[in-house]
């Protein structure tokens, strides 16, 4: 009976960790990265034959499809052609995909473009191959300060909302190494991925251990 309180604490934390681990293993997602632009309104309006290119996008993760938010002015959407070019609209083509006509207004569409590797800069170009105009959602040009949107070859003070997806889903647990690598950027210079592994170990193992010591000390104080 003397050990009941701290065994209870350990059991509760262990049970909670198992539940969190199961969630972390079963919650699988395919999102690779985003341009980081919230869909605040129409960033580019494409009439028949028009092309919009979001240039100089850094690719921190491999991806195979691109998601856009589209507006069709309450009519069935026009067919779109999406290409991935090297760095700018004039760069070599790295991938291509298309979206068939008929998608609804204010909807999200995911277009497969083939496997694109991480570590390069790309441009994502969207061309209206139909007869009706299409709106692509995005936000003001400050939203992605190192990337540029060009519509009909002219620079526009806006950025597109772009989400990049992998070909397969991954669990959060499988993503941990990448997540820690992402987390080390824009932190104090001494913070690295190792810091998060260490912190993870600290909060998962050390915090419960320290609280067990608190409970043991409590039992000693009570003279049990």
């Amino acid at each position, binding site marked *: 009976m003397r050990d009941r309180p701290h065994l*209870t604490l350990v059991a509760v934390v262990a049970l909670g960790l198992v539940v969190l681990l199961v969630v972390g293993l079963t919650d699988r997602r395919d999102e690779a990265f985003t341009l*980081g632009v919230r869909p605040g309104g129409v960033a580019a309006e494409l009439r028949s034959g028009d092309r919009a290119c979001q240039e100089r996008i850094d690719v921190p993760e491999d991806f195979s499809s691109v998601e856009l938010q589209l507006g069709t002015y309450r009519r069935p959407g026009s067919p779109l052609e999406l290409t991935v070019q090297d760095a700018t609209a004039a760069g070599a083509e790295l991938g291509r995909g298309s979206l068939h006509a008929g998608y609804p207004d204010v909807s999200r569409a995911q277009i497969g473009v083939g496997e694109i590797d991480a570590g390069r800069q790309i441009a994502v170009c969207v061309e209206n191959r139909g007869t009706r105009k299409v709106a692509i959602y995005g936000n003001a040009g400050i939203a992605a300060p*190192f990337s540029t949107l060009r519509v009909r070859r002219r620079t526009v003070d806006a950025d597109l909302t772009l989400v990049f997806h992998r070909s397969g889903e991954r669990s959060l647990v499988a993503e941990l190494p990448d997540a820690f690598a992402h987390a080390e950027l824009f932190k104090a210079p001494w913070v690295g991925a190792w810091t998060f592994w260490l912190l993870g170990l600290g909060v998962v193992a050390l915090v419960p251990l320290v609280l067990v010591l608190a409970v043991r000390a409590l039992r000693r104080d009570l003279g049990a």
Partner: protein
Amino acid sequence: MRKRVPAPLGWLLVAVGLLGLAWAILNPAWQAPDENSHFAYLQSLGERFDLPGDANRPFFSTEQAGAVAAVNSDQVAGVLETKPEWSEAAYRRWRRLEDGLPESARDDGGGPNPAAANPPLYYLYTSVAYRVAGGGDIFDRLLVARVVGLVWLLLVTVGVWLLVGELFGRDRTLQLGGAALAGLLPMITFISASVNPDGMLYAVWTFFLWLGVRALRRGLDLPTAAALTAVAGIGLVVKATSYALLPGLALVLGLGLWRLRDRAPRRLGEIVAVAALPLVATIGVWTVIARGLNRTVSGQLVGTNSTLDVKELASYLWQFYLPKLPFQAGFANAKDLPVYEIFLKQGWGGFGWLEVMYAKGVYAVLALFTAAVAVAAGVALWRTRRTIDFAIGAFFVLVVVALLAGVHWTDYHYVIGGNVNFMQGRYLFPLVGLGALALAKALTLVPAGWRATVVAAGMGLLVVLQLYGLGLVLQRYYA
């Protein structure tokens, strides 16, 4: 004789500190409520030795504006679809830009921002650490400012330990249970681990409650009177919310002096003088400085429209706590049941800019737990009603009512003005000491032999909630 920190409290503080450190390091820059504004205030004070709010200056310094844009902070704030910048190439570009910035890029901010009306004490305290870390980059200084703020989280934990001990006769089990609730509650850790004066506010209020109870139980003496008014005065120069301490302060001082009138009439004058000094040294000095600088002493107190429609206010209050009745006019865009959506959900955990939430079912369980503790505390109070110290009860009621009146008065004006984004669950955290007392009272219903086990289970659950919250933040921003 040298007093030692009780071992259970010492170990609890280690756990609280570790979790606080994890939040401070993991959470992305400026992804906590108003952290960008609070940091801009801190940088203005730390670099220019001047308060922000100059209409002719920009919101952010060039350095902060560049870093905010590079990490994509504004686009990410409150919007689950967007992520902070992950690209190493973008990071290297920002670093090259940062390295090329002139010294003046740090001190060309100081313009108006939502935090500019706050009194300066928290920022003054944090600016010392900011200056010490001055050689590092902006993320270095942000992290240092977050970490030094964890002192307040530790003090909240200590304050609750003392408060519960004062009312429950130093019952270590109840003290540990109450202090663990305050120190391990994920939302308090998250806010305290960001650049925000609220962490200091919670500590000040917790110590105020402890000192007030101490004065009412043991009688008002010179040190307690001075400490109580010092804490209240400090609160007034941390955040305008602390004006809600004044009715409670008046009650404790008034009652304390009244009780002394026969026993030690000569001491009355001394106590009044000693109690007044800290107020003069804090809010008095700040008032003189603010007037000299042509600033409002506490902008939030005068920032609301003062129109009052009693019927409408009553309807607003009803609809905050209870379901809307058929004949009541609804408030535009009001949440379904604000007491649940705001106080309960955001009180237990709403991270980032409040968009990172636990699963809905978790809040339902936490609501049941909260209600169970409230009912159990009520039952325990009823059973011990003959021993209740009504002066202490009145003190607590005054503090609670004053705080709620202040936040509801402000929220009401925001709501009728068409803005529903003022009220937040964290505005209740200055009262965390009372929440811990309610938990301690509820625990008295548990047979003594089982109390430590129940406290241990509760601490385990709080740790799991902390880990869950940290996991959600990791997933939301980095995965």
